[in-house]
């Protein structure tokens, strides 16, 4: 079991949990957190290299590093792990954000120990989810990732934290309720006595009528986490109230679980229904894209702006997935990566700004560029990434999505593609609005002039993220190929593509 590298994505966090539990002071906690996340980052980087090597050497199984360990033998539930390019990309993303999140919560207060314990529990869920290919295990990790949010927001949050934490938890759990039913339904209706994704997908034995019933549930279940309209309202409140690292991890990684799940479970296992019912969700996600962007235009709280922006961007992820072709899906995964990184950057910066000015209302700030140029420049870069400036990650992802979406010739798809394209303008509007009000212009509050610029740990955190954002933006083909090679033909055989 421990010869499989993937298992260490869960083992390392568990060891981290133990280490933090035994830590006696802040320094030790930080050491454990940073060392652990570095180890995870190293592991995922190594995995990436090794994976590419294996693929180059001709390994053509849909998933590599497969491992199956029977868990509940009677139900044939296994701890099945395996990764393809998509999962590796996600693992990489998660470990980067965990690392930067640890830096971003360098001075977390109060209860630092508990904070990191919960944060790492959350990351166990995330990592576990991405390496699992057993529906049950996947779902379990999925839920593991959800619940620490409640405490993380509730204890360390700001504002209406209790309300938001509750709302977030309940809505996400509501989604997972649908999901659970759908997964059990898939298990029974596939008739394979197996929870293994690959086997179920290969057999494609779920009755079509049942697919039509189970697919919406699975999609909505994951879609809630992907902030699909109209189930997105947890996102603004939740993100606004969450502490920095949690916002980062949640928006950066957790929301990706939604998109990933929609793809891996809903569409992968029920292609027939996906084809038949895509239009419904296409409309919803298309609305998300524009709706989130428009909503962001009038918000005044930085985190709300970013949360609505996430609704828009994540909407684009789901939107692209529903286009059911390789290009759009590649774009979707790239958008996940891109949005994960840049939204984490955003939230990190917002947290840092908030830590200094103690307000997130853009009407009460201004001219920060003069006071804290480093943070302001980073914010601007994040903004540019968000509005899709070439050379940063947002652009390549969105373009791939648009080109891929346009590939789909249905009129409805075309119309919604064009509507979704409009989001690039609206995004520019709200991003520049914030940049203009917050960073540029004269200094609004004289008291702000004494504030300091970023500290070294804040710089570490932001620089890491910016480098990643730029790396994807400058060398997209590497990531696109990593993802695209993953779409083995069998995924699309039923879709006729």
């Amino acid at each position, binding site marked *: 079991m421990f010869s499989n590298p993937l298992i260490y994505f869960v083992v390392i966090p568990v060891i981290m949990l133990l280490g933090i539990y035994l830590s006696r002071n802040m320094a030790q906690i930080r050491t454990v957190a940073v060392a652990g996340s570095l180890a995870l980052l190293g592991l995922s980087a190594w995995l990436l290299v090794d994976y590419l090597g294996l693929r180059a050497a001709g390994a053509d199984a849909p998933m590599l590093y497969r491992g199956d360990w029977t868990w*509940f*033998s009677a*139900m044939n539930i296994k701890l099945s792990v395996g990764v393809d390019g998509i999962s590796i990309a996600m693992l990489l993303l998660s470990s980067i954000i965990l690392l930067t999140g640890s830096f971003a919560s360098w001075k977390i207060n109060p209860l630092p120990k508990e904070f990191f314990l919960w944060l790492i529990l959350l990351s166990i869920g995330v990592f576990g989810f991405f390496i699992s290919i057993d529906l049950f295990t996947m779902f*379990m990790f999925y839920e593991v990732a959800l619940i620490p949010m409640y405490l993380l927001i*509730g204890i360390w949050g700001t504002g209406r934290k*209790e309300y938001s934490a509750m709302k977030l938890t*309940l809505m996400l*759990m509501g989604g997972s309720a649908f999901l659970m039913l759908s997964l059990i339904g898939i298990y*029974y*209706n596939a008739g394979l006595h197996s929870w293994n994704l690959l086997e179920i997908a290969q057999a494609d034995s779920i009755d079509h009528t049942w697919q039509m019933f189970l697919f919406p549930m699975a999609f909505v279940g994951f879609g809630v986490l992907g902030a699909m309209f109209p189930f997105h309202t947890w996102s603004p409140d939740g993100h606004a109230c969450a502490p920095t690292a949690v916002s980062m991890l949640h928006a950066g990684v957790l929301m990706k679980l939604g998109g990933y799940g929609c793809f891996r479970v809903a569409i992968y296992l029920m292609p027939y229904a996906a084809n038949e019912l895509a239009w419904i969700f296409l409309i919803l996600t298309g609305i998300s894209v524009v709706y989130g962007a428009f909503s962001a235009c009038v918000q005044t709280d930085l985190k709300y702006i970013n949360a609505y922006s996430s609704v828009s961007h994540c909407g684009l992820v789901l939107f692209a997935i529903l286009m059911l072709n390789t290009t759009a899906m590649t774009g979707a995964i790239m958008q996940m990566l891109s949005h994960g990184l840049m939204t984490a950057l955003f939230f990190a910066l917002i947290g840092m700004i908030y830590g200094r000015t103690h307000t997130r209302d853009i009407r009460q700030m201004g001219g920060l560029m003069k006071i804290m140029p480093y943070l302001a420049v980073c914010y601007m870069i994040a903004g540019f990434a968000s509005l899709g400036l070439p050379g940063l990650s947002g652009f390549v992802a969105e373009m791939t999505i648009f080109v891929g979406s346009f590939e789909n010739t249905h009129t409805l798809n075309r119309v919604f593609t064009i509507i979704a394209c409009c989001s690039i303008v609206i995004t520019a509007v709200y991003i520049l609005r914030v940049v203009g009000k917050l960073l540029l212009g004269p200094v609004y509050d004289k008291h702000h002039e004494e504030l300091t610029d970023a500290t070294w740990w804040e710089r570490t955190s932001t620089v890491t993220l910016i480098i990643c954002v730029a790396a994807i933006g400058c060398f997209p083909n590497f990531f696109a190929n990593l993802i695209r090679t993953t779409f083995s033909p069998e995924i699309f055989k039923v879709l006729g593509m």
Partner: protein
Amino acid sequence: MDYSQFLVMKQEIGLLVVFLLVFLYDTFMSKRALNSLQGVSIIFFGLLTVCGFCCACPTATETAFAGMYVTSPVIACIKNILNVGVLIVLVQSINWNNSEAQVVRRGEFLELVLVTLFGMYLMISARHFLLFIIGLEAASLPLAALVAFEKNKYESHEAAIKYILTAVFSSAIFMMGLSYVYMLCGSLYFGEIAAQVATQQVSVLLIVALAFVVAGVGFKLSLVPFHLWTADVYQGAPTSVTSYLSVISKGSAAFAFLVILTQVFGAVYSQVWEWMLYALIILTITVGNLFALRQTNMKRFLAFSSISQAGYIMLGIVGNNAMGMASLMFYILVYIFSNLAAFGVIQSIENATGKLDMTDYRGLYKSNPKLSFVMMLAMFSLAGIPPFAGFFSKFFIFAGALSGPTSIALYVLVLIALINTIISLYYYLLVVKAMFLSNDEPVIPTFKSACSERIGMWVTVAGIVCLGIVSCFYNEILTICQQYGLLGGLA
């Protein structure tokens, strides 16, 4: 006159022996020796529990008294599960029993607990309604006395009155139903009734009789609408008794319910009681949740939570197969640990400070981090949050419910149950919120809970953490259920 048949009933006999030993010890030993009464009883009972797992466990389905009594690995398994629960309850109650007001009655407490457990054994093993009734009464009547144990508390008496009056009423209804079943089938042996039910046409009389029987057992299980006593009794009863009532009594009743419905009326499953069960489950879960939403007394809160949990337990019966049965048993097992963890904390706090209200729990994490941690685990497990055992039991109970022939109605039922988990999560989180999120100064001062209580909590926490992740428990249960099943059917 083959009296050796008694030997089949190893677990019952063992329990009676423990009961008698405790009884004799309590009656005849000196005052000083009585100080170790609880220790001795727990050791005895512990031995019995251990025996239940190794030597007293039947290896195949065995019947005695012409099929009036049956035991099988499955039945032994559920009994073992109950034993474990009772053991924890006993350990948790040590501190309370040593309190000044209670010390004179601790012998009775132990004896009544053991004897009610005996009743539950009979309920589970009975394959004849007379024996079943006796078991049912033995499991509920002494409990009424237990509920009334808190002498100097008015609530305790009121609770006992409510409990015994409804209990007797429900047994009257139950027996009324039974008399009609007897009229239809001419026998009280489960097997013979089942054979008759299978051959006869479904008649109104059967349905009404079945409804009465369901009501009678549903009362013990506190299914809505037969549940109204639950909250009052749980609130009024001493906490140890409440925890006993909420897990052991409920667990045994759930299994007995399963036995009656599947073994006796299995033939009219899809015609009659499947639909009854749907209605009851939806009502139970929903109403339990809705009431739990606004409770502030912790015991009352857990009472309503346990009502909705009963609804989930019922989902195991809906499957009407071995998978469902295994899920039900596993659910009971996990539920025992989760609920006992919660009650362990409540009890510990109650014994130390007398506080029971949720508002008193505000800021508990600051003064008693470990207690609040245990409480949180219990709440998460009850809510079905992984990686705690509750998640697994919930998942399996849903999987069990859907394991039968697929029908949309079943999916809708499960969906409603799932949506209800959100409401339940809400109120479980309220407790967590009070303990962790509140910025108020803690009401409850820092205190050190008694050793026994701590042991109890450790055991329950270990259960909450391990029962799910360590797969052998569920695997074992499911294997047994699939291999042996109950008497006939369900294999």
